[in-house]
């Protein structure tokens, strides 16, 4: 009897449960709909639009995109010398600039854990440059690192050779790295928080064991803050591949473009500051090759994705998670 009456009841319960679940899902979807619409329209749609454009010839104005298959990709790899040049410059920033900036941010953060008085003032001072707009900072450095500017005057005073930062292709990228190091405030704050979070008892135990300062830094501090270093590395690599504003301003400012002619060299001096995104921008908005620029954007996406995945894959060898969670 129980079996006979139980089956319709169970079915009814199941029907009600499904109805409730569906209603709940609808309610959640309704509340999320502004985000969903925005995500689809402003994120997914442009992404797929650019993917579609990357297979077309399209001027980005009123022309209907014309299907070109893999032409843009083939052109990029076989005919465009500026693609390779800009990619090389970008890898320079990622491989040399990003690690230097992370190291500098870490050292500044470590130094800021030392002073007993005036900590707040020092931390503020080192963070303030982060709030300066990138264009303003680049313009300031254009002046500061001019061949006969204030920075070189100081170097000259100490009889240190004075490079022509913005006119010598060998020194322009190091100049940009200096500009980047000046603005490491955000990474510095994260490192500072991580350094202050390292349990003191680990250092005390090391002291008892007779460890030196260097040993403590290498064996305790670095492993304990390695998740933050990893985070900074991932963010830094992604940012490095998208490096644009500072280089664009410096390149234009040091190139000496005439007022009415466009014969300004890209990535001045001698293409040394021609980064990937600058060439992409030039192709999209000055040459009106939106199809080609879209293809460049997707190649960049693949490179960034590959580098990020590679970093994540190697992270289990050098990143230490205190709680054992990943």
């Amino acid at each position: 009897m129980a079996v006979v009456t139980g089956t319709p009841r169970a079915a009814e319960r199941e029907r009600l449960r499904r109805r409730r679940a569906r209603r709940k899902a609808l309610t959640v979807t309704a509340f999320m709909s502004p985000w969903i619409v925005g995500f689809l329209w402003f994120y997914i749609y442009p992404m797929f639009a650019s993917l579609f454009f990357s297979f077309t010839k399209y001027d980005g104005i009123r022309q209907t995109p014309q299907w070109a298959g893999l032409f843009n990709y083939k052109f990029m790899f076989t005919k465009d010398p500026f693609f390779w040049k800009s990619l090389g410059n970008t890898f320079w920033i990622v491989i040399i600039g990003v690690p230097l900036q992370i190291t500098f941010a870490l050292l500044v953060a470590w130094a800021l854990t030392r002073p007993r008085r005036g900590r707040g003032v020092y931390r503020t001072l080192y963070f303030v440059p982060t709030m300066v707009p990138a264009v303003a900072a680049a313009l300031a450095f254009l002046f500061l690192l001019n061949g006969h500017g204030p920075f070189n005057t100081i170097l000259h005073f100490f009889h240190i050779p004075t490079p022509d930062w913005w006119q010598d292709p060998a020194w322009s990228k190091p100049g940009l790295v200096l500009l980047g190091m000046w603005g490491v405030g955000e990474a510095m704050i994260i490192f500072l928080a991580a350094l202050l979070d390292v349990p003191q008892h680990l250092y005390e135990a090391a002291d008892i064991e007779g460890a030196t300062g260097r040993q403590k830094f290498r064996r305790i501090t670095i492993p304990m803050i390695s998740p933050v270093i990893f985070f900074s590395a991932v963010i830094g690599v992604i940012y490095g591949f998208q490096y644009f504003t500072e280089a664009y301003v410096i390149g234009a400012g040091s190139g000496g473009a005439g007022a009415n002619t466009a014969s300004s060299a890209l990535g001045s001096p001698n293409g040394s500051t021609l980064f990937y995104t600058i060439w992409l921008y030039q192709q999209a908005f000055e040459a009106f090759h939106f199809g080609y620029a879209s293809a460049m954007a997707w190649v960049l996406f693949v490179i960034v994705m590959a580098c990020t995945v590679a970093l994540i894959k190697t992270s289990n060898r050098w990143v230490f998670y205190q709680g054992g969670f990943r």
Partner: protein
Amino acid sequence: MKRTIIGVLGIAMLAVACTAGGGSSAVSAVDTGSGATHSPVTLNVWSFYSGHEFAQYQAVLSDFQAKYPWISIKHTPGKSDTDYLRAVNSNTAPDLAISPGPDNVAKFCSSGAYQDLNPFLQQDGMDVTTIIPPQALRYTSYQGDQCTLPVLSDAYGIYYNKDMFAAAHITSPPKTLSELETDAKKLTTFNPDGSIKVAGCDPLNGFYESTALYNGGYSQGQWYSAPQKSAFGTDPSWAKLLTWQKNFITDVYGPDGYAKLRDYLSTLGGPNSEWSSSHGFETGQLAMMMDGEWRTAFITTDKSNVNYETAPFPVMDGITGLYGAGQIGGDVIGIPTGAPHPAEAWLLLKYLATDTGAEEKLAETLGNVPTTYESLKDPKLLATPHFKTFLDIFANPKSGFKPLTVIGDTDSTLWGNFLSDWEAGKVPDLQQGLNGVAQQIDQQFQLG
């Protein structure tokens, strides 16, 4: 799931393809007769102007409003060509767009982003060739499509320091590039450490406005031998010009002249010193230079006491009849497709581009060359010291701007890149290098 993804992709791509096109607008006329009645209209005008120049431009727009009281103008500063194109694509185009140069005119015209003005001109029975010199009309149209008109121009000539000329016993400005080199050598002085104290002339492409020298206008260099076919590798005048430049630098400044000139620019404060009172010519550290007409106003504003004169820039030796011409080119103004009030926009465009009073007022206040036959006779401008030189250069039929192409300024950019490599000694074989840059430019057309 796979079907859903394919469906979403398909819809997205269809939407992309559908939204990439655009519409067109018809030409209409405004009755400006005294008895006509009009509904109030607000014109949206976008321009690249900013700061005090924006205010000066605004004054001329106010004159227009006084003439046509039913039209009010909302003038938005700081806009670029990219903004105009974006607005055209999103159907939010302004009524009138003012660009700082002709680089993108070919694209504006060929893509239909700007309306062809020929129907407006025909409707008003205007023969624009009787109002505006052909050298200015050339850089405002593309393949017969007059989608913009010029409003003010720049003209490039030579500025020279009269006191230094007198001290070096030079009695007249150079007329050929050889004379320029000879005079530069006489005028250049060095510090005890060998660095440049006063440069006779700095011919590097990136130095101030010297770049105008490398656009071919002073050596009859052809940019294209056929449509979309670069002539850098085939026109021998380019190799001749660059060889002259290299010899000039070595002859005047020594074997390490390039490094000395780079250091010299740094002592002036870098390239940006061009826009400050530490400009080399204004401070007496530069004897001769290529520059535009606006420098006359800058010298006054910066309160420089340099005793100077202006003249047409020297031309390549052996080219007869070219001296007196020079590079010109300036603001272009057009009606973007989709402009809400094209008829009233045309009234304003016509006023700015062809009205003698408006042209003269703009030229006088902004310190540029006016672009109509009548306004070039403006007595005030003719009486402005040193300015007549530039009016004459603009009026010279051999003056002009580089050819316009659908790749915008990309050919200039690639040429500029090559020049910077050449000057730095990174091009071992000049002809091979010129062939290379020609190939790069040709390839850019394949992407369009």
